[in-house]
């Protein structure tokens, strides 16, 4: 019996240590109660705790007990010994008043507890109405408990053992012993004395075996308590770390169940909703957000849950007139079996970073644009310089040709006059000789015959006929040289000042056709339908460049067609309101639709590398639109040629505002 009491004492002392630990660590009575309730032994062996100071007449309140129905109730209510009809006594149940149990009065635990608490600890004997099938039994079972008082909380911590339980253990051991005796009896056929000796020996053995089992039992109990304590501490530490981490995170964190109800959230999340954590927990998106927003959030939650994978994205919203960007990370919370049981959402304010990135991108775009403009300007300058150099060279050559041409032309005119005189003179000689020969004088006839011989041998008749053609052809050649020189000068307009001057567009077209003659000659027939248009203020040299550019492009496009016949280019000019308009239409291959918007862009070329700079039409655009305030456009259908149209204002370039307007118009078109 003392072994049992020792075992009970050990259990109670362990429980007392736990209580003391919770008290000293200030971990709270409730947590402590939970810890004690978890020290599960078996249905009949357990730790219980009574709140001694709460006795309201029905005994102290049970605060820890494996039977949850008992917790919170006064002991007197739970164990109503008045209902007890029978008493357990040494393996048998006797009705009250039975002679065997005469004099036995069931003692109530409540009174026993008070006695022991006064002395700190001790063993109490009492009767307990055991609960069978959810109802207190009518049998009063004698029970022994060891109690220890915890004065700080006024708790009585106890652990008890039923007398019938102890009896059963003893009976079991006796049965084993009996079986052993029977075996021994059959083997040794021993005498009663021997039996006695053996019995006495076995009795000692039982006692030893029983004690060994209890010691082992105690040990495992202690181990279990120790493990529990360590695990509780570990769990508490992990919980504290988790809480510290989540609380101090700069992000808003919320954990929701499958119904989108908040299980846990940090303060940052609650603050963003102008609520406390307690006000948020248990609420769903529908409670926290406007319906439309909540539905949207739920839908995205469900995507994460159904697809069982992490989703990351950015949420752009306008809050209090400010554009905000939130980085949202939603990840499913899985059980060990990989089933989704909730969703963890992390919201991070990305506005500043996003704005910085946007600013950086904008700055980068500006830089790229500036770089592009710089390259364009550089190429533009090179091309313009090239054109100007070509013009200057052409003009220089023209001037150099002019001097020798002056005396060639002048002399040829003089020569024509001389030849005319000589021919006239020859005719006069002829006439006189004919007259002399007609006189019939033999001397004269002889001279006439010699003259005729010389005339024939020198082919004078032929020369007289041919000399005029010779002079005419030479004149034609000189006229052509003069025409070319004039076109060169007219085209480059090096003779003119760089400022705008009143010029005839029709004359510009004619001189440019002269320059482009070689390029066009074997490729296209050019028809001009030049209308009666007024002179306009323009830089004629530049306008001629534009015409040349369009003509050369048309000729090259026609040449690429591999056609048998010549191409056709029709140049028309006419007046349209306060503009003079020039259209240059070819029947070449045409321009694909996708290139039409890009055709005036710098560096856009369809020619092989090295053959086209992609600047010709861009510079043309610059000349017509920016410098002259005119319009330049192109229409084309694939396979049916292309028509370039440019219009120049009769009264000169419009004001700057209108110019800017056209700039935008063009940019819009390019975007379209």
């Amino acid at each position, binding site marked *: 019996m003392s072994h049992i009491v020792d075992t009970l004492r050990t259990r109670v002392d362990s429980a007392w240590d736990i209580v003391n630990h919770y008290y000293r660590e200030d971990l709270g009575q409730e947590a402590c109660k939970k810890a004690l309730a978890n020290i599960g032994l078996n249905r009949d062996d357990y730790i219980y705790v009574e709140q001694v100071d709460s006795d309201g007449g029905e005994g102290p309140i049970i605060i820890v007990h494996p039977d949850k129905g008992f917790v919170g109730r006064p002991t007197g209510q739970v164990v109503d010994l008045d209902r007890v009809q029978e008493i357990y006594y040494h393996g048998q149940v006797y009705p009250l008043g039975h002679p065997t149990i005469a004099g036995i009065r069931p003692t109530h635990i409540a009174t026993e507890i008070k006695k022991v608490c006064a002395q700190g600890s001790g063993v109490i004997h009492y009767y307990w109405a055991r609960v069978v099938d959810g109802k207190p039994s009518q049998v009063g079972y004698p029970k022994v408990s060891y109690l220890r008082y915890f004065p700080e909380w006024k708790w009585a911590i106890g652990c008890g053992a039923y007398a019938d339980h102890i009896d059963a253990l003893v009976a079991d051991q006796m049965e084993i012993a009996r079986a052993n005796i029977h075996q021994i009896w059959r083997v040794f056929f021993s005498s009663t004395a021997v039996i006695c000796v053996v019995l006495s020996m076995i009795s000692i053995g039982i006692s030893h075996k029983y004690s060994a089992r209890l010691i082992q039992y105690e040990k495992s109990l202690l181990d279990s308590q120790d493990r529990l304590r360590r695990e509780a501490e570990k769990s508490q530490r992990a919980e504290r770390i988790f809480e510290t981490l989540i609380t101090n995170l700069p992000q808003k964190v919320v954990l929701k169940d499958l119904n989108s109800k908040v299980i846990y959230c940090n303060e940052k999340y609650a603050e963003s909703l102008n609520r406390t954590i307690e006000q948020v927990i248990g609420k769903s998106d529908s409670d926290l957000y406007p319906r439309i927003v909540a539905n949207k959030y739920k839908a995205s939650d469900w995507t994460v849950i159904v697809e069982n994978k992490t989703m990351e994205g950015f949420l752009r919203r306008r809050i209090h007139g400010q554009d905000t960007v939130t980085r949202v990370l939603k990840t499913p919370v899985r059980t060990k079996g990989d089933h989704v049981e909730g969703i963890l959402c992390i919201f991070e304010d990305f506005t500043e970073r996003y704005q910085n990135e946007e600013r950086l991108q904008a700055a980068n775009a500006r830089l790229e644009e500036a770089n592009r403009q710089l390259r364009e300007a550089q190429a533009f300058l090179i091309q313009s310089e090239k054109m100007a150099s070509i013009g200057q060279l052409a003009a220089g050559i023209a001037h150099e040709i*002019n*001097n020798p*041409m002056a*005396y060639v032309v*002048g002399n040829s005119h003089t020569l024509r006059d001389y030849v005319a005189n000589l021919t006239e003179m020859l005719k006069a000689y002829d006439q006189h000789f004919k007259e002399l020969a007609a006189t019939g004088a033999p001397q004269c006839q002889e001279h006439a015959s010699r003259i005729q011989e010389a005339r024939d041998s020198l082919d004078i008749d032929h020369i007289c006929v041919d000399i005029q053609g010779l002079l005419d052809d030479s004149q034609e050649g000189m006229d052509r040289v003069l025409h070319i020189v004039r076109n060169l000068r007219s085209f480059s307009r090096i003779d003119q000042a760089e400022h705008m001057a009143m010029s005839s567009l029709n004359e510009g077209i004619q001189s440019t056709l002269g320059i482009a003659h070689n390029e066009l000659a074997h490729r296209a027939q050019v028809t001009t339908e030049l209308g009666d248009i007024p002179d306009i203020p323009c830089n004629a040299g530049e306008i001629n460049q534009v015409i040349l550019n369009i003509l050369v492009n048309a000729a090259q496009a026609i040449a690429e067609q591999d056609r048998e016949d010549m191409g056709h280019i029709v140049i028309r000019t006419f007046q349209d309101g306060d503009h003079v308009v020039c259209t240059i239409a070819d029947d070449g291959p045409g321009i694909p639709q996708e290139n039409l918007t890009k055709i005036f862009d710098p560096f856009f070329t369809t020619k092989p590398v090295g053959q086209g700079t992609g600047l010709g039409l861009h510079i043309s655009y610059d000349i017509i639109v920016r410098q002259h305030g005119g319009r330049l456009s192109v229409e084309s259908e694939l396979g049916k040629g292309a028509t370039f149209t440019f219009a120049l204002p009769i009264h000169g370039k419009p004001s700057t505002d209108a110019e800017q307007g056209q700039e935008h118009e063009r940019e819009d078109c390019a975007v379209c």
Partner: protein
Amino acid sequence: MNEKTVLFVDDEDRILKTIERIVHRKPFKAIFAESGAAALKLLESQEVHVVVTDMRMPEMTGLQLLREVKDKYPHIVRVVLSGYTQITTLLTAINEGEIFRYVTKPWEKNEDLISVVMAALEHGEKAQAVQPVASGAPSGGAIPPSGG
């Protein structure tokens, strides 16, 4: 009526010969110089009514010559005959040299050149007729009568 003299200046000998052929037997006397310096030397010894000069010449350009002629012999009518038609040069010649005509090389017809020279002579004559009334100064009185 005194025969008028026209001085042609050009560094290109062939041009002068061409002109010589053109003005042959025309109602004025033609003299020729192959540089500005030679032209000024001739002017010192002869009365000249019209100067026709090229622009681009080594050492002394046509413009320099015309400036000097304008200073020393303002009554001489000045004509430019040049293949160099850059607008800036042309404008300078007109503004600083106060020229009567600017004829481009090559001229289309020989008669065109002659008619310009005739018009210049006529212009000079008219100016001479007006000048004594206006200023009372003798016109080209210091210049000996033309000869050789």
